[in-house]
């Protein structure tokens, strides 16, 4: 194996910068206060992260206006964003939309705008879309070249300046850029399970779009985005799990019951040891996914499915244990545990459930299902 599963010094420095930024500008109290208001995303934080710190362009080549690092670095940012359930459209804009754009037409000026954090985009597919799904047919291009149709449950759409819309064009699959301000475009936020990454329904009625790619290029761009999104989501899930584990451990060291710290009770200790073990595994799996994606390694589809199968379930379990082991306080709105639980549960569905990814693995590693039902 030639994969590098460690974090480089540069990656650790990047992590420290992002973590410091989030510590200052993304307290859980602030996230909690914002999530029910009219503006669930934090534009100031987003500007600092995407533009000032340069996190939006890490995996964009320098020639296309980015930092020329790789998806490994972007994954490190996602770990930290997961650890703080930050209300920023990073997954939608930096991971999904930017990856699709880089695959479709990297020279497009939008690429540089996204990489600089000057503009924000979203990929207009339901967040639940798994890699390998059929090209969406919900939006059609009419004779006049405008787009019509509807896409449900799009992540980060309400924070986007521009939407990348897969559509069924005259020559088949096509990918368009549509301005959020365009007439005929509607973005209606849903009441979302995940309070810090709400989804929205997008409707298009005769909306003008700019063609980015068509045919196999459009299909490949979408698949690349979905695969990359699923793979890097594992890093976010790792971050969620790490926060939940660390927060729970800290609480249990302090909280006393029966004149002993709760964390001294063996049943609790063993559960946390098991959770730690799975988290250690998640780190290896998420790193492997990021590394194979960054290198364009042929094993990337296996690595992504593996990471999602493991990390998707782990993040939920870690958040559930966090709630349970905090006892009553973990059930209250004022404690941040529920923000992680809701993000973890939504992430479990996002870009393919663990079960869907295991089904992919069955094909990829030749462990076929029984022939009959």
């Amino acid at each position, binding site marked *: 194996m030639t994969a590098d599963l460690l974090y480089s010094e540069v990656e650790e420095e990047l992590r420290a910068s992002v973590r410091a930024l989030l510590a200052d500008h993304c307290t859980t109290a602030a996230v909690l206060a914002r999530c029910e208001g009219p503006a669930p995303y934090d534009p100031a934080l987003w500007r600092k992260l995407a533009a000032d710190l340069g996190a939006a362009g890490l995996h964009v080549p320098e020639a296309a206006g980015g930092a020329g690092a790789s998806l490994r670095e972007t994954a490190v940012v996602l770990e930290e964003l997961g650890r703080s359930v930050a209300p920023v459209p990073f997954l939608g804009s930096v991971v999904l939309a930017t990856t699709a754009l880089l695959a479709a037409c990297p020279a497009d000026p939008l690429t540089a705008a996204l990489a600089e954090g000057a503009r924000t985009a979203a990929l207009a597919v339901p967040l639940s879309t798994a890699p390998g799904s059929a090209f969406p047919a919900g939006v059609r291009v009419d004779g006049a070249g405008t787009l019509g149709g509807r896409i449900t449950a799009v992540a980060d759409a309400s924070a986007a300046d521009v939407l990348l819309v897969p559509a069924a064009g005259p020559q088949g699959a096509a990918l368009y850029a549509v301005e959020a301000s365009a007439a005929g475009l509607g973005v209606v936020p849903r009441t979302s399970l995940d309070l810090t990454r709400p989804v929205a329904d997008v409707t298009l009625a005769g909306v003008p779009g700019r063609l980015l790619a068509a045919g196999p290029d459009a299909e490949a761009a979408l698949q690349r985005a979905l695969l990359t999104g699923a793979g890097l989501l594992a890093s976010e899930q790792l971050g969620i799990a790490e926060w939940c584990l660390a927060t729970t451990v800290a609480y249990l060291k302090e909280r006393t019951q029966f004149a002993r710290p709760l964390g001294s009770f063996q049943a609790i200790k063993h559960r946390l040891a098991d959770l730690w073990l799975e988290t250690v595994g998640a780190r290896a799996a998420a790193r492997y996914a990021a590394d194979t994606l960054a290198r364009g390694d042929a094993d990337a589809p296996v690595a992504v499915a593996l990471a999602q199968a493991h990390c998707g379930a782990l993040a939920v379990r870690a958040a559930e244990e966090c709630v349970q082991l905090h006892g009553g306080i973990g059930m209250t709105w004022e404690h941040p545990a529920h923000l992680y639980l809701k993000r973890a549960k939504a992430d479990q*569905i996002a870009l393919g459930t663990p079960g869907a990814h295991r089904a992919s693995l069955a094909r990829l590693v030749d462990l076929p299902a029984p022939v009959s039902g």
Partner: protein
Amino acid sequence: MESELRERTAALLAAHDPADTDRLAFLQARFDAGLAWVHFPEGLGGLGAPRSLQAVVDAELAAAGAPGNDPRRIGIGLGMAAPTILKYGTDAQKRRFLRPLWTGEEVWCQLFSEPGAGSDLAALGTRAVLDGDTWVVDGQKVWTSSAHTARWAILIARTDPDVPKHQGITYFVCDMTDPGVDVRPLRQITGEAEFNEVFLTGVRIPDAHRLGAVGEGWQVAQTTLNNERVAIGGQAAPREAGMVGVVAETWRARPELRTHDLHQRLLKGWVEAEVARLTGERLRQQLTVGQPGPEGAAMKLAFARLAQELSGLEVELLGEEGLSYDDWTMRRPDHVDFTGREAGYRYLRAKGNSIEGGTSEILRNIIAERVLGLPGEPRTDKNVPWKELPR
């Protein structure tokens, strides 16, 4: 006995035709006829009959269209306060409290848990100090359902901090209209607020509202808590009642959502749910023939695990739809309704099943020690005065 009950029920219905009797008047008449809870003593809503015969009365009254006392609204009074008052109350207390409790004229709540005393309830710190013949109470309680609608509360408070924690507790009936009682809603992860925080500041309780002896509140509270656990675990139910039925229905109605992963997990959940149902049914049959088993704690454990697994599965099954939530608005529901809301709500609310009314961790301790007879852990808090405990 059964025929006597049928006769009394017929007599009640003859004297108070449900069709033209006021609801409260009917309930009061039923109480006075000894048909409220037939296993209670005569004069206190019962006839000293076997508890199992209550079903006979209930069936006859239901058939006649008689009004019920809405147990869901007054569950804490019926399930916890009443058995405790019956066992430990003075005659005056029983006469004063039980009738309006049963008819629902007076709602009850329970002031036991504190922010620093949940599973380790005996560590509670709410203080009650005697001033003449009145106790003055200061402290904070939490996870109090019905506090905002309750007229009375059962309350445990520390009356002696200088003795080990189990010994210095006394049990009271607290008037929720006392000006020192401040009830604030406690919002949960579902968005709603089923429970309350209750702040007690100089609340005055006459010594006549003490239940049991001073310093023996812990023993009195055991009666309350044992009844709580029975109430949670003891209900019979048809196949596919509860969470499993909700998921099974979605599965049948929505073939496009099916995957083999979910199918296998659903089947496992269905098996667990049906086994739990049969276990509950066996428990019910044991109780009927007077062999109470220790399965009550097991039922609550199983119920919590199932509700969590299946509601989590349902959200996953719904996929894209599972990304939505029905409503985050803060509401004040008067009971938990798992089926009246959507999957996301069920998923979040079910997380409380393994915490409220005894955490799953505490229930496992109870099973291990009381059922299996495994030895306790080394205790460092047994003979230490409460005021010297770490907290």
